[in-house]
């Protein structure tokens, strides 16, 4: 029986983690162990990583190896079923609140693409334009436009069009999807939703009735054009851990309406350039690396704005070494440097003071530039027609091939 988090997050004195706010205690770091404990999900340990490698016959993704995706719910059930020959489908999404995507935004998509390739399963991607319209007070047209723009960056992550369905809430809600929304809504009381999401008497009813929209893509019957007759199909949701509240609610409701609980695989938060305690924000372009940054921008941002754990002088640095706990370049390399051996070497040398901050930053700049370049080239190949095709309600006959 799993813990269902009922307390209003705002009542906790320490860290706040929910879909609309992430902040650590006293401006410190997020305590992930506490979070796992409070939310009631499980740690993803090495045995899972090994199992994934065995089942997919390929090296596990760098995010798995490095513990970027570190928590889960029922991932073992997914793997058990997969071993028995039962496939599953993936569900992830984005709230299109701005056109400026940074690397942190791409992380769940990079990982989801790997999962799609490795397990050969279909994927639905939800663009919650309605949510952003309500929470960020955007116009309907603007949020729809942003959804399409974001779709292009998402497609650029390399999803296979014959196995991927992208939809925007404003376009798709209705029919079977809406029927499931009502089923879910009937199972969640006003008090419950206030408890999970912290809504107040001042919040408008749109916000209150939104959670079912994000819940029902977890149920295959929401997509009759894709999964009709496959009511038994399981769902795996890769997301950042701040989305957990939606799916705790969904998992609570699922058995009551006769569906499988969706499984989750959750990631850490991507730190801002200024450090773990800093906030990545769209209004401070120097807090993150954007997919539209040029190589020059990346070089500038990393050199001038990345928070490092290096000592103030070279002598001190050689003596004490770098503080890897707070060093942002090391953290970023942890996310993006593929070569495990090289990363270990850098950590060792830098931690001992033999390698200087400048060198680490230089390597990071190379790695980030390559990623951003590749993304931009792929993005350039995405046309409006391609977006239309990805978003068309159409059958995907080869989605399990």
């Amino acid at each position, binding site marked *: 029986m799993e813990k269902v988090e009922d307390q209003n997050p705002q009542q906790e004195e320490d860290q706040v983690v929910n879909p609309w706010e992430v902040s650590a205690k006293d401006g410190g770091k997020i305590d992930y162990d506490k979070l796992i404990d409070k939310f009631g999900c499980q740690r993803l340990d090495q045995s899972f990583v090994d199992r994934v490698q065995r089942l997919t016959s390929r090296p596990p993704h760098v995010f798995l190896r490095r513990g970027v995706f570190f928590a889960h719910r029922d991932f073992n059930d997914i793997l058990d079923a997969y071993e028995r020959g039962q496939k599953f489908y993936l569900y992830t999404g984005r709230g299109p609140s701005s056109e400026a995507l940074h690397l942190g935004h791409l992380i769940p998509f990079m990982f989801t693409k790997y999962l799609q390739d490795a397990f050969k399963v279909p994927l639905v991607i939800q663009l919650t334009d309605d949510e952003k319209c309500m929470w960020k007070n955007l116009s309907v047209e603007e949020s729809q436009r942003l959804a399409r723009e974001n779709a292009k960056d998402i497609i650029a992550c390399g999803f296979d069009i*014959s196995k991927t369905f992208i939809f925007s809430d404003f376009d798709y809600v209705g029919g079977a999807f809406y029927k499931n929304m009502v089923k879910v809504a009937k199972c969640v009381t006003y008090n419950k939703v206030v408890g999970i999401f912290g809504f107040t008497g001042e919040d408008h009813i749109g916000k209150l009735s939104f959670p079912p929209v994000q819940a029902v893509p977890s149920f295959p019957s929401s997509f009759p054009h894709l999964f009709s007759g496959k009511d038994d199909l399981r769902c795996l949701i890769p997301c950042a851990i701040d989305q957990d509240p939606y799916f705790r609610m969904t998992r609570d409701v699922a058995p009551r309406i006769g569906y499988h609980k969706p499984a989750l695989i959750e990631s850490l938060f991507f730190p801002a350039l200024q450090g773990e305690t800093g906030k990545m924000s769209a209004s401070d372009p120097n807090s993150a690396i954007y997919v539209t940054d040029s190589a020059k921008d990346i070089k500038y941002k990393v050199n001038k704005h990345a928070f490092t754990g290096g000592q103030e002088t070279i002598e001190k640095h050689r003596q004490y070494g770098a503080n890897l706990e707070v060093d942002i370049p090391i953290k970023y390399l942890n996310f993006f440097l593929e070569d495990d051996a090289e990363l270990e070497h850098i950590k060792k040398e830098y931690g001992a003071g033999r390698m200087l901050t400048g060198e680490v930053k230089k390597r990071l700049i190379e790695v980030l530039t390559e990623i951003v370049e590749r993304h931009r080239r792929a993005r350039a190949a995405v046309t409006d027609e391609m977006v239309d095709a990805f978003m068309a309600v159409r059958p995907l006959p080869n989605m399990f091939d």
Partner: protein
Amino acid sequence: MVYSKDQLLARLKELQIDFSQYEHPVVLTVEAQAKYVGNVGGALSKNLFLKDKKHRYYVVSALADTKVDMKVLSQRLGLGKGGLRMAPEEALGEILKVPLGCVTPFALVNESASHVSLLLDKGFKTQECCIFHPLSNDMSISLNAFGLDKFLKSIGRDPTYIDLEANPPVGKDQPPDLASLVPSGSTVLPDLPEKTPSQDSSGNHPSAGNNSTAVTAKADKPSNAVQNVKEKSVNGVRPLIPSTDAGKFVEELLDRTSTLLLSEISEDSIKRHGGQLGAEVANNIKKCLREDLKNLATIFKNTAYTEGFYAGTHYQPKRL
């Protein structure tokens, strides 16, 4: 064919354009020119030959008194705050085919300058006559804006006069107002890096990036670029054009593989691996290229699917 001063003057006469000509010793600056033709009744012009980070060139021709702020101009063209520089001397000779100190709108008569963009000061229109060099600095010619227009139209140019002193805001909701004057024929993508060894910094971006509106303006461009991207490969950069041409696709794959292959085989690696070099290189190639090539293949697949999808949704059923 490179135009000479005399050929230009002959052309002007052919076009029945009214002008006066003044010979004088070679001058390299507007001040020096003013000494000789400052009081012939025409307005002196200052002419700048500029280039941006993507090797696109611009001739900015203005009244000598007009203030030209390169930073503002750069932003209005959509090149960011520091996107414009003075073009190097060599470019003067190579592209405009004129000597130092002789930048002039007339240089655009040369075939080599066909990609150069021309920005004209709207102040010219209010002057009776304006003074320019006719492809050499030992002469100045004075003509009015109509005459200049007639000449420009005769060489296939659409004369665009702009308020060079204006400083309109450029941001998310106000796109750069002169963006259409940036030469096309190179990819419109703002952020493609140059792969030529001479460049160490790559690409440029349409805004300095220190406010969020700038960031959103950037993100808009790629979707437009895809519509106007042409085949031309600029300075060795190969943009990834959405293409379903199997030949091009295979060429791209082979290019990448052979580049990597060549880099793997050196005297050093031959010594190190001897007869095993083949197996070693084959392994490395697979390791390094696997993901890259898969990504390319996925893009190819998605593009082909999209083409089919479009055809399918526009298909007209057989009439019975």
